[in-house]
Structure formats: structure tokens, C-alpha cells
């Protein structure tokens, strides 16, 4: 490996990832396999997301990395430090300032601006949405080719009739552009409607499986559900953040002897909200 290589990965490996990214954008929700050498970083680092970020990043980019909404978690810090070290790009915690946001399991709380061309890179542990209903990878591929999602519907039906709602709390299956059903990565249900018709380009990378998929901006993203059922997201009605007082956001629930405590899951949102409340 050449130590002067910008963004760590060599050019041909980047070309392979870039080819897959362009195909993924042209085929919203379709899983594109790519060839890759192992990244010399530990698993759980989110190598899929990392490979995408390193293949798209430019000197002028401003990078934000979050883990479950938090910029300061060890995982997020390690990834951010690594990327800034091999690229020299500027880093930020500010969602609106970032041109690339690499994330694990959350979409930042702030609404994205329309014309900023921001890119969200998701780290994906299990790219194939059909694994829960069909273990055979060849059959999974055939099912996608035939738009045959009957097995997912059966699962959904069983849940609905037995429990009144789907038991799937994260990785909720979504229909992209009325064609492919895909795994949105383990984001909460709260974030699913926020993927729909979003102004940002959403890219998904699974390192172990070597899979890439994408949702272009302004693309229809619908949770798989029966017409007569409402899609229920996590409910936090009447709850506000103990630190900043914010309401109607996604909360982390902390259980202590004193009872349940709630804090904004998005730490940057919490900081900004706290600053605003203190100022007024």
C-alpha cells in the first residue's frame, strides 16, 4: 500500500466501489455485489460504510460520523479520526455543515437542506432484507428478480394477526421506488418515514458481504404494510429530553433506579437545542 494514497484505498479498488455505487443509484434498492480486498481494520468498524466514504470523499468535503446518533462514541471517533487522517478533510458535528455523513443506525434529527447535495452513508450489518424469511442466497436473488415478496407479507400478516402490529422494531423492510424491497439498516422505525423523498443521497455499504445499495434523492420509500394498517413508529408522546427539553424527537431511554430517563438520541441536536434554550 502506497502511504501517499489519498483516502487509503488504492485506485482500482475505488473504481470497483464507484462502479457499484453508480449502478446502485440507477437501480434504487437493488443490492449490487462488489469485489473487495479486506480492509485492515477490525470488524464492527463498519467497513462497508468506510469503503464507500473513502471512495467518494474529496479534499473539499466536511465529514460527520455518528454512531446511533452520537458523534462522541468511541466507534464514531475512531472512524472519523481514521478518515480525516488519510484524507485531511475537515470534520464537524454540525449536520447542516457536513457534506458527507457516515452513520450507524440513525438519521440525524435536523432536516436536510434541499440544494446542499449532502450524502448519507449507512453502515449495514445485514444487507439482504429476505434473510429473515429465506436463507438461500440464490433464492433470495430470484425473489428480488420476480418482485416476489410473498414470504415477507406472510411474516407481516402473522405478526399483525397475532400481535396487532409487526414485531419488527428495526431493520423494517421498505419498498423503494415501488419496485425493490430493501433493508434500511438497523435504524429505528421513527427514521423510516424520514427516508422518503429525502433531498439527500443515501448510500448503504455492507463490508463483510461486500454489498452496496442506494436510495437517490427524492425517491419513494414506503414501509411494507397492509393498506388498512397504520405504520406505527416508536411513540414518545408527552416525553421531553431531560437535558435540553426537546420534544418530538427520537429518544434514548436510560433505565435507572429512579425510573426511566430520556435523552435525545442525536447528541448534536441536543447540544444545539440546549444552547437555544439557554439563550432565550
Amino acid at each position, binding site marked *: 500500500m502506497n502511504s501517499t494514497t*489519498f483516502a487509503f484505498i488504492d485506485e482500482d479498488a475505488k*473504481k470497483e466501489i464507484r462502479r457499484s455505487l*453508480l449502478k446502485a443509484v440507477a437501480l434504487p434498492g437493488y443490492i449490487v455485489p462488489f469485489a473487495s480486498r479486506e480492509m485492515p481494520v477490525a470488524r464492527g468498524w463498519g467497513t462497508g460504510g468506510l469503503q464507500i466514504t473513502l471512495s467518494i470523499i474529496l479534499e473539499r468535503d466536511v465529514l460527520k460520523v455518528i454512531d446511533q446518533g452520537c458523534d462522541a462514541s468511541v466507534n464514531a471517533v475512531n472512524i472519523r479520526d481514521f478518515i480525516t487522517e488519510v484524507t485531511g478533510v475537515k470534520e464537524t458535528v454540525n449536520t447542516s455543515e457536513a457534506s458527507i455523513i457516515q452513520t450507524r443506525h440513525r438519521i440525524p434529527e435536523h432536516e436536510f437542506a434541499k440544494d446542499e447535495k449532502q450524502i448519507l452513508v449507512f453502515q449495514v450489518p445485514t444487507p439482504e432484507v429476505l434473510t429473515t424469511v429465506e436463507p438461500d442466497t440464490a433464492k433470495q436473488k430470484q425473489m428480488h428478480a420476480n418482485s416476489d415478496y410473498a414470504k415477507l407479507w406472510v411474516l407481516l400478516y402473522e405478526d399483525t394477526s397475532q400481535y396487532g402490529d409487526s414485531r419488527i422494531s428495526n431493520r423494517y423492510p421498505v419498498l423503494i421506488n415501488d419496485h425493490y424491497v430493501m433493508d434500511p439498516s438497523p435504524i429505528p422505525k421513527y427514521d423510516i418515514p424520514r427516508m422518503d423523498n429525502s433531498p439527500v443521497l443515501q448510500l448503504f455499504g455492507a463490508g463483510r458481504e461486500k454489498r452496496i445499495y442506494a436510495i*437517490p434523492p427524492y425517491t419513494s420509500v414506503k414501509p411494507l404494510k397492509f393498506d388498512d394498517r397504520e405504520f406505527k413508529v416508536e411513540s414518545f408522546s408527552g416525553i421531553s429530553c431531560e437535558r435540553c427539553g426537546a420534544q418530538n424527537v427520537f429518544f434514548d431511554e436510560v433505565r435507572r433506579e429512579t425510573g426511566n430517563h430520556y435523552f435525545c438520541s442525536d447528541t448534536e441536536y441536543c447540544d444545539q437545542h440546549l444552547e437555544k434554550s439557554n439563550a432565550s
Partner: protein
Amino acid sequence: MNTHTNTDIEQLNRKNFRNCLDALSRPGDVFQITPLFDSSLLALAAMLLYSEVNFYQQTDTNWNMIKVLTNSEEVAVEEADYLFLDTPLEHILMEAKAGDQLNPEFSATLICCCEDLNEGTQVKLSGPGIDGTKETILPATTSFLQLLAQKNKHFPLGVDMYFLSDTHMICGLPRTTTVEVL
């Protein structure tokens, strides 16, 4: 011919890739390409091509440097992953591979030069990447665009396209875009 170090070309590649990614993600919007050997077509070739993909070209340009740089093989139209053309050609579009239901990514990408992105056919675009609908001009004839619509009628099969102008501007058209001629 200018001399370029690998580092220069890699820098060019990443800038041009990002603009291609933006162009394909936002059909109808126009982005800048930085030329290589005074050609934005060759700049795209340098960025897209490598040993694992192949190409076809029908251009007035010398491709020797690109072949050396990328180790990519020149093949027949119907096999090619990338098709580089001096002008949008209907018979090439017809023959370009469109992928299959199992592997729709085994499809061709057309890169077509034109003089000016603002001269051609008035169209209305809709589909992923477009906020509602977008009225614009595409630098191709009505009959080429009708053929393209035919080619892309059965999603996920189809081809993806880029138009490149003499002034090094690029506009992307993925297979998901519905092109209505006005």
C-alpha cells in the same frame, strides 16, 4: 500530450466521479467535468475504466493512453460495459446490453458527446432524483429519446446515460428517469 502523474489522475478521477455520482443522482442537473488530455470524454474514461470492465468507442479521439492507463479492453458494442460516443447513435443504443432480471447491473452505460447541453429536445423529466418534475433540454433527437424510453421501459432492465458538452458539462440520465418529449 501533457504528462500527468498517477496522483494527478487520481485526483481528477475522484473529482469527476463525484460529479458523475451527483449527475446520476440528480437527473437533468448539470455538473462540471475536469478534462484529461483536453477531453472530458477521456477524463470520464480514465475514471470509469479499469481491468474488470470493458468498453466500446466510436470517437475521433486517440485511446492508446486510456488503454495503457486503465488496462481496460475494447470490445464489441453488445458486450461493452461502457460506450463512448461522439454523438448519440440510435443503432448503438439499440445494441447496448440492458442487463437481465437477476443481474440488472450487467447493463451498459452510454457516454455521449454533444456541442451544447442546452440545444436539443425540450423534455419533462420525472423519477428518482427529481423533486416532482423537471422541464429541461436534452441534447438528443426526439427519435433517440423515444428509443431510449423503449429501451428503459421494463425496469430494472435498461441503460444509463451521460451527455457531455464541448464545454465539459455533464448531465446524467439513469434508466429510472421518465423522459416525456414536450
